[in-house]
Structures are given as C-alpha cells and as structure tokens.
C-alpha cells in the first residue's frame, strides 16, 4: 500500500502561556492551551476541527500557519518541519498555506482598497501581474470587477468573506485553513459562502482545514473531523462515523446538545437538549476565567 505523504503532520504539539504575575515572589501560572495534539491531514483532504471556546483550536491554527511557535512537538507541512523556523525561513509556507478568518469586519484593513487587500500576498511575495490576477480572483469569488476600487465597509459581511477568500487564494496556495469562516454570517449568506468554499476547494484541488464550533457546518464540509476539548483531541475519524456513532463522552455530549430543526419538529424540547449535557459544564464560579463558555 503506497502512502502519499501527509500534507500536514502534527505530533505532540503543546503550547503553554505564562500568565502575568499576581505575586511578587512567584512567577505567573501557566495556561496549557494545547496539551499534546497529534493528527495528519492528507493532500486534498477536507479536514475539520470541531470544538467549543477555549479548546485551543485557534491557537492550533496559528501554529499551523506559522504565526506562532509551539512550546514543544513538531509540525511538518509539505515535508518541512516548521515549528522552529525563523520567519525568513518560513517564506515557502506563506506561498503554500493561507488562512481565512472569522470576523468579516476585522479581517480586512478598512483603509485599503479591495484590490490592494487581495493583492497583498502577491506584493509580499514579489509576484508580478497583479492587476490581472486580482480581476481573475474577484470573478472566482463571485464579485464584480469594479469591486476592486471600493473599500471594505461598502460591502456586506458575506461579500467581505468573499474578499477574504480571494486574498487567500491569490498566491495559489495548496492548503487553505479556514477559522470559523461562516460563523458570523446570516443563514442564507452562510449557504452561499459554504458553496463557494467547497466549489473552490474542489476545482483547485486544495487541502482544506476547516475549524468551527458549529458541528452541522463541519459535517457538511469535511471528510474527516477531529474533536477538540481543553487542548486535546478526544476523537478523530470520518465525519459520518464521529457524528453517527460518537465514542468519546464529550463528542456524544456535543452531538446531542446541538439544536436540530428535525429533532425539534419531532418533539425534542430544550429540556431534552440540556439532558444530553452531562457534568462537563460547571455552573459555579470557577478559576477558569471569563473566556470559557463564549464564542468570540
């Protein structure tokens, strides 16, 4: 059996943060954002990462994109170990891997015209022929050619996400990393943007890593999924299996706590939803701090 080398290979990645001191004598406590994460993504695969806030998925993405370094462990992208490289050695990564962000408002520089935003990766990498490429990209994401001369605030949330996608595709990456790209969008816009993403991934044969807290979206988009909880991956597998037959208790809880139109019409009530969640969520004041429990 021939094994195609993994596009991305992550082994035992940890990421610790030092909190600021609260006492003069003892250093700040450590926050273990990632506690030994390992997984592989095959080329052309659509890989999903599902988890709630505080599970570490955003931290993981930054490390994958070379925007942060892990405390320990290894990350291999296209055969090259990137976890200890200096910025200037990461140049190749910038061409191979691009990210789409969650918030359509803050992911585009409000002072830049759309065509400059989209062309930025090309400028950074010294690629010519930018005008033509920008027009090509605008068309690929379903925007009018004259959109290039306008500013982000003149567009709706869904259109801004399209601009984000165009920017990400500019350097012709092989790997696309999407961090909650549709979470901030309305339902009908979400469907359009999801269609766009799946079309592009298919047409350009991209490897996709799709992160979301929304299980139904991940289920629709991805072939395989990893479920994250408190800095660790608790379950991985083909989407259908993980959702249809979850093995880890946290996955089971997650799957049954999602409100579903079908189940509601069949009689499921809020009480039924709540009954599915075991004791994983504490309801007393915790030391965990204000970020858990919120999607931001």
């Amino acid at each position: 059996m021939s094994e195609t080398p993994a596009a991305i290979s992550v082994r035992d990645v940890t990421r610790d943060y030092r909190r600021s001191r609260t006492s003069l004598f003892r250093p700040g406590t450590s926050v273990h954002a990632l506690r030994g994460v390992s997984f592989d993504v095959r080329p052309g695969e659509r890989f999903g990462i599902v988890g709630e806030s505080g599970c570490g998925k955003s931290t993981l993405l930054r490390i994958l994109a070379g925007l942060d370094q892990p405390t320990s462990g290894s990350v291999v992208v296209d055969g090259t170990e990137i976890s200890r490289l200096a910025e200037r050695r990461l140049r190749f990564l910038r061409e191979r891997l691009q990210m789409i962000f969650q918030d359509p408002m803050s992911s585009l520089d409000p002072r830049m015209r759309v065509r400059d935003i989209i062309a930025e990766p090309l400028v950074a990498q010294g690629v010519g022929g930018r005008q033509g490429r920008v027009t090509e990209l605008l068309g690929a994401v379903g925007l009018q050619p004259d959109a290039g001369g306008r500013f982000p605030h003149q567009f709706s949330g869904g259109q801004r996400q399209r601009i984000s996608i165009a920017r990400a595709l500019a350097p012709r990456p092989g790997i696309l990393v999407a961090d909650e790209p549709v979470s901030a969008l309305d339902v009908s816009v979400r469907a359009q943007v999801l269609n766009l993403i799946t079309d592009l991934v298919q047409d350009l044969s991209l490897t996709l890593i799709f992160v979301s807290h929304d299980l139904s979206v991940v289920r629709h988009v991805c072939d395989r999924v990893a479920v994250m909880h408190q800095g660790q991956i608790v379950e991985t597998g083909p989407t259908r299996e993980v959702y249809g037959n979850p093995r880890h208790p946290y996955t089971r809880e997650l799957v049954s706590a999602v409100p579903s139109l079908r189940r509601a019409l069949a009689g499921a009530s809020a009480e039924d939803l709540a009954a599915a969640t075991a004791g994983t969520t504490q309801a007393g004041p915790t030391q965990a701090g204000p970020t858990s429990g919120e999607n931001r």
Partner: protein
Amino acid sequence: MSAAIGSAIRRDAAPAVLTVRGLNVTVRRTPLVQGVDLTVGPGERVGLIGESGSGKTMTALSIMGLLPEDVTATGSVRLSGVDHDLVGADERALSRVRGRDVAMVFQEPMTALNPTMRVGAQVAEAMLIHHTKPDRRHARTAAEALLDQVGLLNHAQAARAYPHQLSGGQRQRVVVALALANDPALLVCDEPTTALDVTVQALVLDLIVRGVTARNSAMLFITHDLAVVATVCERVLVMYGGRVVESGRVDEVFTRPRHRYTQGLIGASDLEVVDARGRLATIPGSVPAAGSFPAGCVFRNRCIYATELCATSPDWVGPNESDGFACHHPAGVPHV
C-alpha cells in the same frame, strides 16, 4: 377552521400580554420596520425569526422602549398591566415598566451586568428598585434563591462573585435571573445564546424555558437560528425587509412554509440536504441595504417565482396576525 376559531376564542378569553399594532420604525427617513402587527398571549412562547436587516432587533427594542437617539417609532405597543402605550412614552414611565412588566435578555451578558457590582447584589437591586421585596435582607435571600434556581452551583458563593469572575454561560444565567427577578409578564430575548458554546446553550435555553413556564410569563424569542426557535417556541413570526412575511405555529411554518422567503430560509439552513454537486440550497442575491428594498413585495428581487403582480404589496392572507402570510405566489398552493 375550528382550530382557528378555537384559538380565537382562547385569545379573546385571555387578554394578550403583548399587542403590537402598525409598528413603524425609521431612522432619518430610512424605514427599518414597516407595519408590524404581533400578539403574544399569556404563557405563550413566540419566536421572531429573521436575518440581518430584517428589522427584528428594532422591533424588540421598540417593545422595550430602547431605541437609539435618532430612531423613531410610530404605532402602538401595549403591554398588559401597563395603562399607557409604550411607543412615545417618556423615559421615566418606561423605566418603571422595564424590569417589572417586561424584562430582557440580550446576546452579550457583559453589557447587561455592572462590572463593579457583585452579581447577587445586582439581582437584589432589581427587586428593590421595583419594590417587589420589602427590604434589603429579603431581597438578598430571594436573590440567592433565584441564583440557585438558574443553576449556579454554590449560589451563596456565586452571589458574592463579580461578573468577570464568571464564565460566559454563568453570566448569562445571572442575566436570566435578573430578568426573571420580578416575575415579568413578558420576557424578551434577543439572541440570548448565540454567543455561547453549544453545550452551554442547551443548558441556558432549558433554563429560560423553565423560568418562563414556572412564572407563566409570555416570551418573545428573537433569533436567526431556526432550530433554536423550533425547540423553544410554539409560534413563530418570520421577518424580512422590515415586515412580517409569515406567521403561524412552529410545526406548520417549518414543515409547510408558504412565503417563498421562509421556504428559501428553511432550505438554506438545512445543511444536510445537498444537490448532485454537493451544494446547499441558497436564496439568490443578498439582502439589500436598509431603505433599498423593492417596492411592493419586499422579497421580489430575490424570488424565483416573482411576477409583475409582485410589484404591488401582497395582502395578508390568514385569520389574524398570528397565523398567515403575505405572498402573491405562496408555496403549497397549486398552479401559481
């Protein structure tokens, strides 16, 4: 037919908790909400569904008298137990109503809570302001009991916590406690669980439903999430372009939608149904900016069934504002 008469009789028997008639909201000559009628009966849980630009948030804010400076509302909003119209009422009159007859739960718990006050004290204060408890000691005891009811473990300890020491889900529970403190006749929730994790959302939704059921309070639940509305509410209104385009019982509207927008929305939100290419159903085009909706039927520039007839505003078809739709070519009706 008899069901309609039956519900009409029921409705006449018990006066509605919330009656909105002809609500129009404009900002500097741009209409945001047009001609909205809605009714919520005692103990009823009604959902208001819409996307950005639908006017649902402005409708909610009008009901609570919380419209921003340059936004004006006309029409009528009547609440049971309050002898004056809420539209156009002055701030003093409204502040007596808010927190007592009508209470709200917003999306962002941090903005509803005073960061410099312990949460127990905040709940107690809500009671004292509206004189539902005779003195501080009673209010404090009642506040702790309420925090226990909303599922905060160690409620005595929780009462002494500041908002920033609690998680998002815990804060939202406190906000729910605050809202229910004075047994309001109407609870208005605007996307109360959208910012919460799925597992926390399930618990908070259950909490809210139990809270209103125990007090026989009516509830108006505003969200964009169809599944949540179906789980929590009995009736639903669908808003688009500042108007109510369809309303009815949840199970009927979601299984047999009549307005084409409702139909499109249900289709777009169903991520399990895809075509041969694996694509989701979508509504063509995008929501126009406020003030740029087409004349006549607000949805016609995105509707594949639109004809010249749709240039005229469709009339409401249905026995009353709680059951009906406004569409020239509704779904489920043969040969239109």
